[in-house]
């Protein structure tokens, strides 16, 4: 078991582009049907609210039309009347019009207000549902998903992608809807007045679209480049800052700065270009609108002077009419409106693309295949009366597998002993690369089984299979004689307490973290568990004892202290069997001896699997398995293995190296 390289042994995270903040939106990342699905989800939860919103948007976007009609009536009908017949004659007409307009504006304002408020409810409600659905779904995903996706990438779905979706639902879609409605209204009005003048507008519209495509396209291109450089710089910064202490120890600050400047310069150049193209778009589109206005007036004047026959919806059926001031003035107003809206839409294109890409990723996560669970054998508390096991509610310290047999409609109870058998098991994280071959092992109830072997030999893999984080390719695993595939995953895992080398603590008090092992444990039980794990001592010395808040994965504790806490957490769970995966690697040997004593007492009569590279940790095991390259090459007790004078013996005497 010489020192062996371990490339590609574990499933490697696929890291397309580092996650974190500001994920890029590569083209083609928008899944088909995303918009439809989003709208459908929205309709499902807020059907009537959405109908009201649409009606309100209709009303509020007709506001501009109302204004232009108002001005038209005012200037064309009422003012001439007043000029001709004096103010008194037109006073009533004027007042009526103003009041009517006031009323209409009032309705528009109310509609806007209602739709803004409703949108707040809908957007936040929908986001809440997307988030929680996504999270609940994520809990059902197999470990493989987490092993093969960069955590930054998953996080980014909750932050950037959800934010982009919020923009899309809350702002882009409603304003696009309102813009399109106004646009349609404007086109209709323009066509009503004059086909010829509409043609002039059409020409400049084509020009605008051309500009949007050209400049907007380049802006989007650099926007993506910017996101990529940002992700790269972020990756570099993260690596450097995580290793900041090493940088300092090696006085490597200047080299780090130099390299940083390279990344920073690239990011600057990309983001500058992206922003320039984005910023320039607005003034260009806006002024094409102004040019359009001027040319319209010139053409209008020409038509008027030459007595050109004008066609519009208002007169096409009566054979057309002349271009008059009454045609030109409202038309010009409408065309101004029109170009303003196009400008607004052009500013939104990139937001919508970003939002859709974000929503796509949210849906992708929701569509992941969950962990399958066909198990039906459940774990129950039991008590034994006259040699017969019966199910009971209370914790008795005795567990049983409740096994329903379909064939003869009977239920049997099998006492949980921790009798685990692996029979000719083959396994690989990816089909091409087998990690375990023909592994056969048996743990008799109450035994302490140890795995010894180099990194990548397959020790952790075996434990991953017992609790079914991964499913085997070939062979069988039996738990108390039951095929583990028949056991409900939740119950299988509940029967196994696990302490891992990498400790994960959660934000909350020390007490809450220990109680994570068993939610209904009393304070006394938690403290008892902490004592057993030898953690009580240091916990009491923390500023607030058991009520000390832990944040950032217990950042203010040492690695050894965190391991003690995680052992306490497993101890309070009081599981019938236990897996300790390098659980004491950061604890000094004296403390370890105390912890091991405590654990041995707790686990008396229960099965324990131990993985360790410190041989002193595993010496008192009932059976030691020596693994090499996915095979068990030796097994036996410490004495037997020493007797054999094989690999274990060489390891023990220091002739070989572990890890």
């Amino acid at each position, binding site marked *: 078991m010489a*020192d062996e*390289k371990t490339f590609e042994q574990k499933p490697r995270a696929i890291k397309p582009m580092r996650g*974190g903040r500001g994920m890029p939106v590569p083209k083609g990342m928008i899944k088909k049907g995303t918009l439809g699905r989003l709208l459908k989800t929205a309709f499902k939860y807020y059907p009537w609210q959405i109908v009201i919103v649409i009606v309100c948007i209709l009303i509020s976007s007709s506001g501009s039309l109302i204004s232009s009609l*108002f001005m038209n009536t005012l200037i064309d009908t009422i003012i001439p009347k*007043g*000029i001709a017949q004096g*103010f008194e004659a037109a006073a009533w007409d004027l007042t009526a019009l*103003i009041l009517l*307009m006031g009323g209409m504006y009032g309705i528009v*304002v109310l509609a*806007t207000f209602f739709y*803004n408020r409703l949108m*707040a409810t809908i957007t936040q*409600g929908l986001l809440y549902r997307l988030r*929680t659905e996504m*999270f609940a779904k*994520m809990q059902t995903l197999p*470990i493989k998903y987490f092993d093969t996706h960069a*955590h930054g990438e998953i996080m980014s779905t*909750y932050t950037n992608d959800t934010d982009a979706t919020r923009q899309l639902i809350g702002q882009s879609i409603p304003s696009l809807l309102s813009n399109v409605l106004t646009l349609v209204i404007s086109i209709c009005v323009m066509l009503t007045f004059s086909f010829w003048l509409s043609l002039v507008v059409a020409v400049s519209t084509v020009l605008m679209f051309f500009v949007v495509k050209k400049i907007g396209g380049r802006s989007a291109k650099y926007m993506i480049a910017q996101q990529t450089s*940002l992700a790269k710089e972020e*990756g570099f910064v*993260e*690596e450097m*800052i995580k290793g*900041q202490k090493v940088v300092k*120890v090696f*006085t490597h*600050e200047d080299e780090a700065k130099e390299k940083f400047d390279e990344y920073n310069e690239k*990011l*600057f150049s990309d983001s500058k270009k992206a*922003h*320039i193209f*984005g*910023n320039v778009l*607005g*003034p260009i589109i806006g*002024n094409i609108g102004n040019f359009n206005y*001027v040319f319209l007036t*010139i053409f209008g*004047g020409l038509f008027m002077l030459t007595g050109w026959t004008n066609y519009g919806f208002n007169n096409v059926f009566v054979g057309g009419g002349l271009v008059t001031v009454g045609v030109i*003035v409202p038309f010009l107003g409408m065309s101004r409106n029109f170009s303003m809206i196009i400008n607004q839409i052009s500013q939104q294109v990139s937001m919508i693309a970003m939002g859709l890409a974000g929503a796509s990723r949210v849906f992708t996560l929701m569509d992941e295949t969950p962990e399958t669970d066909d198990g039906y054998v459940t774990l129950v508390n039991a008590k034994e009366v006259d040699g017969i096991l019966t199910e009971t509610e209370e914790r008795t310290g005795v567990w049983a597998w409740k096994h329903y047999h379909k064939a003869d409609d009977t239920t049997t109870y099998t006492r949980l002993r921790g009798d685990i058998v692996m029979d000719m098991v083959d396994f690989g994280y990816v089909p091409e690369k087998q990690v375990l071959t023909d592994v056969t092992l048996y743990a008799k109830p109450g035994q302490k089984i140890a795995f010894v072997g180099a990194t990548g030999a397959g020790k952790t893999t075996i434990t991953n299979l017992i609790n079914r984080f991964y499913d085997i390719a070939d062979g069988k695993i039996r738990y108390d004689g039951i095929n583990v595939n028949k056991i409900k995953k939740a119950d299988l*895992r509940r029967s*196994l307490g*696990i302490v891992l080398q990498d400790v994960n603590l*959660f934000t909350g008090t020390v007490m809450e973290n220990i109680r*994570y092992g068993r939610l209904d444990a009393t304070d006394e039980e938690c403290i008892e568990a902490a004592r057993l794990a030898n953690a009580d001592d240091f916990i009491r010395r923390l500023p607030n004892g058991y009520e000390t808040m832990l944040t950032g994965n217990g950042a203010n504790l040492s690695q050894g*202290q965190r391991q003690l806490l995680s052992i306490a957490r497993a101890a309070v*769970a009081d599981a019938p069997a236990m897996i300790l995966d390098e659980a004491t690697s950061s604890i*000094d040997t*004296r*403390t370890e001896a105390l912890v091991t004593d405590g654990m041995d007492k707790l686990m008396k009569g229960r099965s324990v699997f131990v993985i360790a590279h410190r041989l*002193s940790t595993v010496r008192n095991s009932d059976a030691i398995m020596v693994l090499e390259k996915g095979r068990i090459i030796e097994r036996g007790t410490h004495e037997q293995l020493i007797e054999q004078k094989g690999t274990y013996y060489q*390891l*023990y*005497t*220091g002739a*070989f*190296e572990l*890890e």
Partner: protein
Amino acid sequence: MVKTLLKSVREYKKPAIVTPILMAVEAFCECLIPFFMSQMINESALTGDGAMTHILTYAAILLCLAAVSMTAGGLAGKFAATASCGFAKNLRHDMFYRVQKFSFGNVDKFSSSSLVTRMTTDVTNVQQAFQMCLRIAIRVPLQFIFAIAMSFVINPNLAWIFVCVVPVLGVLIFLIVRYAMPLFKKIFKKYDALNNSVQENVSGIRVVKSFVREKHETEKFEKAADDVRKDFTKAEKILALNAPMMTLFINLAVLIISFFGAKLIMDNGAGGDFVPTELSALITYGVQILSALMMFSMVFVMISMSLESGRRIAEVLEEESDVVSPENGKTEVADGSICFKDVSFKYSAAAKAYALQDVDLEIKSGETVGILGGTGSSKTTLIQLIPRLYDVTEGSVSVGGVDVREYDLDALRKEVSIVLQKNVLFSGTIKENLRWGDENATDEELERVCKLACADEFIKTFPDGYDTYIEQGGTNVSGGQKQRLCIARALLRKPKILILDDSTSAVDTRTDAMIRQAFKEEIPDTTKIIIAQRVASVEHADKILIMDGGKIVACGNHETLMQESDIYRETYEVQTKGKNSEGGEA
């Protein structure tokens, strides 16, 4: 805070100043355009004689204005982009450079993920707010003033109506923002908590699954998500008042102006000096005032939101390193002797307990010193004082007979090489990683130190040998391999003092012994300090320190300690129990 941030504008001052000026030009044109438009389609002119001349004259003026406006707007966009991106670049640069100056104490204060967020998300927020300021915050008030001025040019009597409406609106916007802002601040905190819970869940998913806590986690998350939803909805509902209210007031003003304007025209009769097109121009200005106000409130909200980001950035920029190199510090370290005199240390002034207390220690140059002690006995703290990663709270530490605070920092750290417990390899080849120790090292030198650290043997088995690429965090080499590479890297510095902080824990006894043997033979003049869990690692040291609770409780060589120190004897016995017949331990 704003002052600290603005220092980073530097070479982008010019575009930052030019942008608002160009924006002002654009705003000016945009105000004139509706005026000339109304002139161009002035009813009497359209129908009268020489209508075409009239139209063409104004068309020419308008085209010029539009061209000027487009150029100014486009250029302003360009300069604004340059200035804001440049500002962001400098902010990131300044922060990174500042972090490089940080002492260990400063690094401990900011978590690494928070520093990364500050350098990315927060800078992006400030960049956006800065660009907003340049482009809009100047332009909007100007547009606002121009629009009001033009209204007065058209008709002073009617324009007063706008002037009356504006203050009312201003107050209302102010109230809305003032009410909504604290809510948003609260939301951001809850939002952070929400993201944090996802983060914890994702990285702890094995724990979640093995304790079957999926439902518990989902409930926890739902509660946090619902908190965010409630507050966010509340805040957005308040902001929802903003737009309709402004529309309401401006429309009211427009209607009032329409009434009195129409009355004025009618009273004057035909040929009066106030004509209908001027009325519509006045109304256009009304709309411009409205949009200016809306923009203004938007900018206001956005800037207030980015203030928090700005504060977080300034916090880094203003953080003073608590370990600074003295001016004209000594650059020569005489030898590898170390002396601790009455040293006490605590990590922060506020901490109640001392991490180290009353430590006196004398180490001669070239000695090998072992340190043993339980979890949390401050072994690491002790050795970190030697290369001045932290400064002592009381007493003094000297190296080569001189107080460490009198050395130039770089010079001191070059001579005191430390292999940290939480060591890191960086992405790059093995060679690149090793050359951290000495940039100019030749391949032969690299090989030599790797042989010393027993790393050469496994590096040679890699297909790419010394050019093997190490992944970020060194995930593709085993723990033992990583430790040996780190030792080799430290050896390359040829230090006068070499410190190994539990650096061979994943290396087997045999290799461990070989490394120690190599140290003894190859670098006899270097002072070697070894922190270890294994007695075997320090057994043969000249001096062994036993630490407990921040104090040195025993000191001596193996033989004396076996007699005098219970802790040492106990540890020794636990580790060697029953195996003396077979030999060492792995």
